[in-house]
């Protein structure tokens, strides 16, 4: 059509993709996989002071079928890992994973036989939020980082991002 010949090939398609990604990033409904103490800070992030709803995560749907992002918050033992994986598998595509806290990022302070040393051993993680527990505004920082990833259309744990780097405020330092 006339617009494509003028603006270049695939203009409509890329703009449509940008619009869709913009819609997705501003309406990320989280699945709160609140396992232990980080769940309290996640609840605080959903409370009125650090409002997660103003970032588009209006409700925390407790059913995985209606969620985009799963926030795994808390120590994941081997017994619980099966359950987390089941919930993750039940989420529709596209889906993202936020690993909240030290226990999900690397096993945290529990270097022992029963704790999975980082949920990236069985889930593709997109954003790691450091802290024990991370402050609610740190979780919101992670959500904003995830929103930038969603805008660029990255999914399934490609180029996982992390917070806690002194130089970045909202630049992504990717692993690739």
């Amino acid at each position, binding site marked *: 059509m006339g617009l494509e010949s003028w603006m270049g090939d695939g203009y409509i398609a890329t703009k449509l993709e940008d619009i869709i990604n913009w819609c997705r990033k501003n309406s990320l409904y989280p699945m709160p996989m609140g396992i232990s103490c980080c769940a309290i800070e996640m609840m605080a992030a959903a409370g009125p002071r650090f409002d997660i709803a103003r970032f588009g995560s209006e409700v925390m749907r407790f059913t995985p079928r209606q969620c985009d992002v799963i926030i795994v918050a808390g120590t994941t033992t*081997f017994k619980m*890992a099966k359950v987390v*994986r089941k919930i993750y598998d039940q989420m529709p595509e596209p889906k993202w994973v936020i690993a909240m806290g030290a226990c999900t990022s690397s096993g945290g302070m529990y270097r022992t036989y029963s704790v999975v040393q980082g949920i990236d*051993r*069985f889930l*593709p993680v997109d954003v790691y939020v450091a802290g024990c527990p991370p402050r609610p505004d740190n979780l919101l920082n992670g959500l904003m980082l995830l929103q930038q990833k969603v805008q660029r259309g990255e999914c399934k744990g490609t180029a996982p991002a992390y917070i806690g780097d002194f130089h970045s405020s909202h630049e992504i330092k990717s692993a690739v």
Partner: protein
Amino acid sequence: MGSLMEAMNEKVLKKLKAKYTEAVLESYEFRGELTIVVPKERIVEVCRFLKEDEELTFDLLADLCGIDMYTPENRFGVIYNLYSLKTKHRIRLKTFTEEEHPRVPTVTGVWGTANWHERETYDMFGIVFEGHPDLRRMYMPDEFEYYPLRKDFPLMGIPGSLDLPKK
């Protein structure tokens, strides 16, 4: 307050020795806390006596735990922390059992709370409680083959013993 505890300790020891002289293998006191070592065959009778006597009513089993002493003989021990709600007195009982097929009679008949405590001890140490109504694992999955709190179990576990979902 210290002398009251000591008087109570002496009373407990005297009554126990009067009734079960050969069942008190050893007893020692540390900072006012009395510990009595009992052979495992007599543990149920001693526990029932301590609970049902009118003067020493040790009706709360505060804790039941296992211990791996890692000595060649009498490797595993079971420790009972008793508390009396009436006299507000605490006492500790210990029994020991050997490494090959450790078995201890259950005190579930005396205190009902011993049910889950003994299940936990079985899960972590492998001490079988004879007469227990429902002895199965509590924390580890039922098919787990090892006993994690033994001294020879490595910190990070045996690779492959707990399975993880595929990525």
